[in-house]
């Protein structure tokens, strides 16, 4: 007996674009992004909210997309790494990640960048130790942690000097 699983339509904004898509209610936001929308920049590292590789922004906050059912995203605005910048027009954080070699294999990088975006925007995080703590939900097995912290410190300093909008994309604010 084959029972078709329940489905629902998700209506959301992803990287500034309106999305309306009918999905299996068990589908996670991570799988919606990757399998339905082809936004494979967001990675699956554990599927259990333990590694941070799937971090995206939802309504301006960092969220583990593997722990969020896609259907709970209706009416929300999602930003993924694809919404940050392109190889030709990099976001300041992406550019700083390159300069400080804040990645090696690159698999955790999208999640690190999205988390870093939140840490840059959070004015209560000012010291190196605070930044390390706030980035500790994003595992990096290659061990690029030092570069990640350096990149965040630099972008924080620059965005502070230039006004805080400079370092955050329009979709996030």
């Amino acid at each position, binding site marked *: 007996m084959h029972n078709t699983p329940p489905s629902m339509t998700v209506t959301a904004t992803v990287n500034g674009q309106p999305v309306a898509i009918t999905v299996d209610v068990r589908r996670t936001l991570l799988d919606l992004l990757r399998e339905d929308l082809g936004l494979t920049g967001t990675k699956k590292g554990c599927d259990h909210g333990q590694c941070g590789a799937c971090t995206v922004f939802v309504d301006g906050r960092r969220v583990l997309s593997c722990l969020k059912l896609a259907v709970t995203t209706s009416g929300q605005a999602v930003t993924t790494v694809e919404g940050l910048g392109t190889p030709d027009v990099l976001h300041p954080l992406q550019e700083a990640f390159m300069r400080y*070699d804040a990645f090696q294999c690159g698999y955790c990088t999208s999640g690190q960048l999205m988390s870093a975006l939140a840490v840059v925007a959070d004015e209560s995080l000012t010291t190196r130790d605070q930044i390390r703590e706030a980035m500790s939900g994003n595992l990096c097995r290659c061990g690029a942690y030092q570069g990640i912290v350096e990149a965040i410190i630099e972008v924080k300093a620059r965005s502070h000097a230039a006004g805080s909008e400079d370092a955050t994309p329009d979709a996030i604010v």
Partner: protein
Amino acid sequence: MLKQIGIAQNRVDGPMKVTGEAAYAADRRPGGQLYALAVRSPVAAGTITRIETAAAKSVAGIVAIYTHANAPAALDWHADPAVMALSGEGLGRQALEAAEPEAPPPYLPMTGPDIVFAGQWIAVVVATSLEAAREASLLVKPIIEPHEASVEIDARNDRFLEPGFFFAADMQVQRGAWPDTAAKQQIVSETYRTPMQNHHPMEPSATVAVWDGDAVTVFDSTQGVMATREYVARSLKLPLDKVRVISAFVGGGFGGKNQTWPHQALAAHIARALGRPVRLQLTRADMAVASGHRSQTEQDVALQAASDGSLTALRHVSRVPTSLHGNFFEPSGLNSLMLYEAAALGVRHHVVRKAFATPTPFRAPGETPGSFAVESAVDELAHALAQNPLDLRQRYIPSRDHYHDRDWSSNNLLECYRRGAEAFGWPEGVIVPRARRDGHELIGVGMATTAYPAPALPAIVRLRLRVEGKLQVETSATDIGTGMYTILAQTVADELSLPVEAIEVRLGDSNFPHAPTAGRSKSTASLLPAAQHAARALLQRLAAAVREPLSELSNVALQDRLKAAGLAELEAEGSSTGLQVGQQVSFYSFGAHFIEVRVDEALGRVSVTRVVSALDCGRIVNPKTATSQIRGGIIFGIGMALMEDAAFHPTRARMINDNLADYAIPVNADIPEIDVIFVGEPDNRFNELGVRGLGEIGVPGTAAAIANAVFAATGQRVRNLPITPSAIVRGGE
């Protein structure tokens, strides 16, 4: 002239990685793709009586369920010993052959009813969606008659095998007679234990198989596309040219993707049977059992020294497990043979079969656990002799490779000690434990030596100069985060006097020229000489085409010359030969770690607060990526020292922490700033550029330096890793 080599160039693949455009194996989405997911055995030993699949088959979207009952016939899926020998199960077989002439039957999941380790795949479900596959996998019900299983090493009662040669070294070395325990001799004799570790690269291994007629393309996450192609082709009974393996980006490997594992072939077998593309991505729990691990070790180390510290005897006996069916074991004694000269030398390995999944190389296999034991013992000896550990190690600098009776091509270990100690501010004189305190924390410093071989294997690099577009560099080598894309671009740029931006490096495709698997720190010295030769061959071919001598080409745009010759493109290949058999000197890299820890005895908390590592790895091609590699290695050592420990249920022999919440790896807050110093002396007897690989050398020695620092801080010698809070608190009682 070297303009690019030696420059801290940003990764050329960086823009792809920071924008999410880099496509890893599971990011490929061929049309009509099916999703495969494994069902794991909950018991460690037993016989499958039957597997109930009716409920699973009723799930909407389920396409197929394979178990040992139908997989052999439906998928042409068999444990062919010749194929198994190519896989991770076969590595080490030659070493064990001397002790165990008859190999145990090869293991391949879903080829029989026997369960040989917990987590073994007993079924694979295939569905049109991830959700359907997940639901069905939970409904597959195996009926298993369980047997007794053991994962405990019992030094007294277990039956140990004595392997022969492994990693080009005798695993049973005995030279000279153990000296009489005369007066005025200092002796350290202790047992050290290191934990089982999981590689856990951030990218779970994944294979996407897409058939086109009688040929298959396999998008895979592997450190070696050529080895994977051979394994998959032999498994499918296909000629090599019918299998293409693509692994352009790999989300970390660390050895877990160095060998080939069943899923890589299985995805292709299922895709062939079902006539649709199949993605098989391992879950995080699978990653703990289905692609190898570093086994635990028990090591007895005995050192004997004269009162001035000169070493008279060294004994290093390892007891290490392998699986019931595989062959790999940790060759823990390798660095003892290479680094320490003693008139009496005994380095032995005893291997025991236990109900584990098969272990496999993990970043500096052998050297890493072995260095923890021996570098801890040397520190204990220094304290027993009332000498500074650095002074004692300077005495022990190996003047040559005594084990192989060869000179070193180049050895700057003394310079590593000198520059590392200076940058760190290493104290002089005897180090008195518990002498430094800051509030509620004790502070201690420790150091250790690291060393790693510098191998090289034959490789081929192809260049393609085109009238339009970037100059292309192609080889089947993979960049698993090492920086291979970047250092190949730098090398070719220097040879052709081009900027790095004018070069496009293409890697990780078995249709590209042959390169060895990325592992054992061999890729730099294998690939860069081939790239140099390819660039020179290209210039010669261009000179011949335009009928002009080479010297006049140097300042002329290559593309203009190509146009002048009336050619659209021009290709050239270059090769390297790797290390020759019967080499006259030994090629090794050396280094020293200096580490400060703070220990809160009330909480049992150990924090690594400062690390300075000085390394002799030949000429450094790219200080930026090289520094990252070393830092990453050191962080693996920190994880090993303080937290990593694959734990087993005491009676069920099943891993209880096969996930990233319970198996702790270092996070950002665990890691201090790590200062990496390269001595940078080119090793020109090794190759023209004087470059050596450096993917592993950061790991050995790090855990010992931390344990030695914990001793300096607390007076407590921890010989069992990881150094947990409970170990510290117990010792403080």
